[in-house]
């Protein structure tokens, strides 16, 4: 299991469409992927949990990956999140 902190900079925060993009990206990997904000942790491959975190611009989240491709998944998702949820 590996983890990294990322600050969300996109202006809208993680609203529905942004979340959908993140889920699509996360679903490319075999590993289990989690997004943690404060005390809550949600599965990055499903929409409702991710939206319930209420991630606003400037919030720091932790990406946690666990599985065979955890390193690749973590690095690529970090870059993806830093780039405003685009490749």
């Amino acid at each position: 299991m590996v983890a990294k902190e990322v600050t969300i900079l996109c202006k809208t925060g993680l609203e529905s469409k942004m979340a959908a993009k993140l889920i699509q990206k996360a679903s490319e990997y075999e590993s289990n992927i989690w997004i943690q904000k404060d005390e809550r942790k949600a599965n990055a491959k499903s929409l409702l949990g991710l939206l319930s975190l209420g991630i606003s611009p400037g919030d720091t989240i932790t990406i946690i990956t666990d599985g065979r491709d955890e390193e690749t998944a973590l690095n690529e998702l970090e870059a993806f999140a830093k780039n405003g949820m685009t490749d």
Partner: protein
Amino acid sequence: MSNGTQSVRLGKIVKEFMLEKLVYAPEFDNILVTSTDINRPGLQLDGFFEYFGNERVQVIGKVEMTFLEKMSSQQRYKSLYELFSRGIPCVIIARGMEPFPEMVEVARKCRIPLLRTPEVTSRFVGNLIAFLNVELAPMETMHGELVEVYGEGILILGESGVGKSETALELVKRGHRLVADDLVEIRRVSSKTLVGTAPEVIRHFVEIRGIGILDVKYLYGVGSVKMTESINLVVKMELWNPQKHYERLGVDEQYTEILGIKVPSLTIPVRPGRNLAIIIEVAAMNHRQRKMGYNAAETFTRRITEDINKNRE
């Protein structure tokens, strides 16, 4: 996983107990209460501050009031100042009693909220502790569904895409209730009880792949949802693994540990054509029957053993 220090905003306590604000400012709403314990500051008013828990809510009842009444105005001011200047979250006067002018003055000076309730002291303290126990309980979020089936709270766990939401929907259709979809907030409210609820923003919404977001309360009515439910049984759904051994008899009980509490659990293999809603229904009924004292697996095993012994004679 989170198990850190929980806190509750003073504003929420004021609202919940409809406390009267004697000395208050809007920013006091954000004062955080972190202790489930409450202090009646009798000894402290007499100047004894050893082992004083300054993080606790201070409740003043008839005893404390009468004690203060016996003092001179100057003594009262000094004694109250000692208490109020120790960084306490707030002071609540019970029984709707009138505060002394020195008390209001000291509260203003130290910027400590002074509140009042009409309730009797011990009853108020009891209610406040019960409320704080729930609000400050250790919390963990889990990815899964929480449903109530025949009165049993069932937490369905499993990887994304295994069909948890679909199963929950089928259970709702069959007359059971949905508590949470996708993310369940679980609180340990006592040393034996776990209570689950949904985060408020996504409460009673379900995501079904291919359709999108559904509002269960709107579609199936208020009878199909529930706000909170205690967790009695954990059901783990996983794709059928031919190499894995699945429970056949059900004599040995399996457990899953959540926030330090062991909850009975089952692992159900998923394969096309298996109606999981029916399996969960029957698991709930079986669990219920066990709680009521009848264990089908044990009875069955005993009968077989008796039969073998009879044949041997």
